């Protein structure tokens, strides 16, 4: 028997002994399902990466690795729908319109920010183009499978989002270069011009495809343009839109703009003034994406108001809490607790802002964001209730695999620093 076949045989034996790598059971914890209440002393069985069973008296199939989480709190893996982690490059700040940029081409699975973010119970992140350009690149939504091949990180079969940005950032970046856009009027012009070109481009291609399908001969296809090609995808709703803007009038502007061009606007990021136009956002069905209590770090952020989340909640505005940074991305659960300080929003709704709502904003609510049979086995285990700010994450599990283990990775647990 060759060395190679011996290795394979060993692997098979090991799998038989331990079950599949993506099989796991957690038993004894307080499970916060998000959609179906709290299960005390519950069990979750994950098989082939999916939740196979969840409940109070669940039989654990033989051969599955079992982790006892008695006394611990089990919640869905946290989702951050606005971040820039794990990217080698963030801003193609050379032109206000760069839709030809695809962020997965900058994705670095070995980025240390993945390791530190995992330790905050986060399993899924939308990592994005920066805000230098009115039309930036296409974001990428990933599972935080640290150091694995990028194919394992990128979530397939889901619509990705085109990043747009209004206001101060593009104004500053291009104004300082002495070129347009240097005003918000300029930002608006740049966006409109780009999508009008895309409409014309799409019309040409549609005609060509139609003629081709009708069997017309001697057709010359229109010239491919990678920039406009991406915008055409947005017009065809193969991509949705996430727009960065702080100010109320811009929020209304982008909602109207997306109606004008029939674009799917899913999220408004850094939405500091969202509460001022909560009703408009609710009607448009667009997500508020932002912080809980951050204001005044720049002029556009001056009117940041944590109490405003109550206005949005009452108006029916959908809300998610984002990090926008590798620092905050590690404690989104503490951000969620701050919601309870400034509003009367119920606990579970605050938790939804970092789980199910975030999943919905990524069009992934069928797969992640709550603990239900059939959903991905993405789980965060905490030592106390996640809205207790003195809690810490003990385990982060993605599709049944343990990617963060406090007991093994923590200096606090090991006391090595003394």
């Amino acid at each position: 028997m060759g060395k190679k076949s011996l290795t394979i045989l060993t692997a098979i034996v090991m799998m038989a002994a331990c079950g599949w790598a993506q099989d796991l059971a957690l038993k004894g914890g307080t499970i916060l399902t998000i959609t179906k209440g709290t299960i005390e002393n519950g069990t979750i069985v994950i098989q082939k990466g999916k939740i196979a069973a969840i409940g109070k008296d669940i039989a654990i199939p033989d051969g599955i690795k079992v982790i006892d989480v008695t006394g611990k709190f089990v919640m869905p893996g946290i989702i951050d729908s606005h971040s820039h982690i794990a990217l080698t490059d963030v801003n193609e700040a050379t032109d206000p319109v760069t839709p030809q940029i695809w962020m997965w081409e900058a994705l670095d699975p070995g980025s240390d920010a993945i390791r530190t973010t995992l330790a905050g119970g986060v399993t899924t992140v939308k990592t994005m183009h920066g805000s230098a350009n009115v039309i930036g690149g296409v974001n990428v939504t990933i599972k935080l499978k640290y150091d694995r091949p990028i194919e394992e990180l990128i979530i397939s079969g889901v619509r990705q989002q085109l990043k747009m940005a209004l206001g101060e950032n593009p104004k500053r970046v291009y104004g300082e270069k002495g070129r347009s856009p240097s005003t918000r009027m300029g930002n608006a012009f740049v966006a409109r011009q780009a999508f009008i070109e895309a409409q014309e481009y799409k019309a040409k291609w549609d005609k060509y495809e139609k003629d081709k399908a009708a069997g017309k001969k001697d057709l010359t296809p229109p010239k491919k343009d990678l920039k406009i090609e991406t915008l055409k995808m947005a017009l065809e709703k193969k991509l949705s839109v996430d727009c960065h803007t702080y100010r109320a009038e811009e929020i209304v502007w982008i909602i109207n703009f997306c109606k004008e061009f029939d674009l799917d606007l899913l999220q408004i990021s850094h939405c500091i003034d969202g509460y001022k136009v909560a009703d408009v956002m609710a009607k448009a069905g667009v997500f508020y994406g932002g912080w809980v209590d951050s204001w005044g770090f720049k002029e556009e952020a001056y009117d940041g108001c944590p109490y405003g989340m109550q206005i949005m909640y009452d108006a029916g505005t959908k809300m998610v809490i984002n990090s926008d940074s590798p620092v905050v991305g590690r404690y989104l659960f503490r951000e969620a607790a701050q919601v309870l300080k400034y509003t009367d929003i119920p606990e579970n709704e605050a938790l939804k802002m970092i789980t199910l709502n975030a999943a919905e904003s990524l069009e992934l609510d069928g797969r992640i964001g709550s603990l239900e049979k059939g959903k991905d086995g993405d789980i965060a285990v905490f030592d106390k209730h996640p809205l207790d700010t003195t809690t810490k994450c003990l385990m982060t599990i993605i599709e049944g695999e343990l990617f963060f283990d406090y007991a093994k990775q923590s200096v606090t647990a090991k006391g090595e620093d003394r």
Partner: protein
Amino acid sequence: MKKFIQFSLVLFLLLLAARASGANDTILIKNGTIVPVKGGSDMVGDLLIENGKISQLGINIPAPAGAEVIDATGKYVYPGLVAVMTAVGVTGYPQAGNDTDEVGTSTPQMDPYDALNPEDDCIEVTRVGGVTTVQTISGSRSVINGKSLVIHLGGTLAEDMIAHRYVAQIFNIGAKEQNKFPSTLPGVVSYLKTMLNQAKDYAQKQSEPAKEDSSKRDLAMEALVPVVTGKVPVIFITNNEVTIRNALALIEEYKLDGIIRAGSGILKYADRIAKSNIPVIWAGTESLPQRWQPHDLNYHTAAVLAEKGVLFTFDSGGYGPGNRNVRNITRPAAISVAHGLSETDALEALTINPAKILGIADEVGTLEKGKIANVAIWTGSPIQGRSRVETVIIKGKLIPMTSFQTRLYDKFRKIVDERMKKK
């Protein structure tokens, strides 16, 4: 929330009316869980405030005639939090620029008093978050930045707010210049030494009998004299191991009353710092670890500092006008508690420790008889992100629980509700 704000407003109007009718500022807080932090143990009881001071703590204190009685049943009474290294009062207006960080490598004479604005929106936002006393600094980006002062966040004129004018000088030992001297860390050290030597000479000259030319004053040197004579402490802003080491060397060589503000790398020096009784402003709880460090090294650092007996407080994660969220000073404390710091140590780090570091421990930082009545009533521990501040008293006066943010809330609550009614 709406009710809470309405309630606050009514309470405020009632208080205004009471004041107009000549009521004094005697306040009796009844039946709260009183957490003195130090100098006493937690108890369910009363706290009496008279003439701006805490006059009595105990059980069943009778209400003096005309006293404002606050029922704190089920609530928690804490000393007002004390925050260091803030820009509260000098954060400026959104369109007029801020008033921190004067241009120049050395500007020790800059005094935040000269820019202090009692209308700074940050004052109200900070105090309704339970922070009642802050150190306001003149800047942080130069090598020698300037003076810093202590204010209580109540009062309508700058002079009413000031507690102490010159509590510490601020050096940034990592503030390298670009394209001019000093552009390296050793350059910064030699620059600081030169300035300190000049200040020593200046102090020497001042102490000598007056000569003809000695009337020429140098305001920068005058600001540094109390530093080199050890009368005013100096806070060294450091951001890594090298800058901490350089700061410690300067403190020792020049016998400075030094304080280390560290963003990372403090643990290696914890024993030495503890032995030398150098206070630490730990600003690195939320700093990202280095690639080779455990994910929670910085989360856990405060616990180690406490264990080694280092006098430390937290920094609210950034200074200057970019950080107006001084009230979130409680977050690094919460993270540290999650990672091994005791809740008692965390509370001390937010109250009495910064008071000690700023030299005002006999005035604020605990609930003790005779101290300035800076008190906040919370729904729970300040360490808990969800705890709300319901009442704030500063220098014995009830503070309206309103801010620029509650006014924004009121305004847009009405606007949004009315628009929704129409549709």
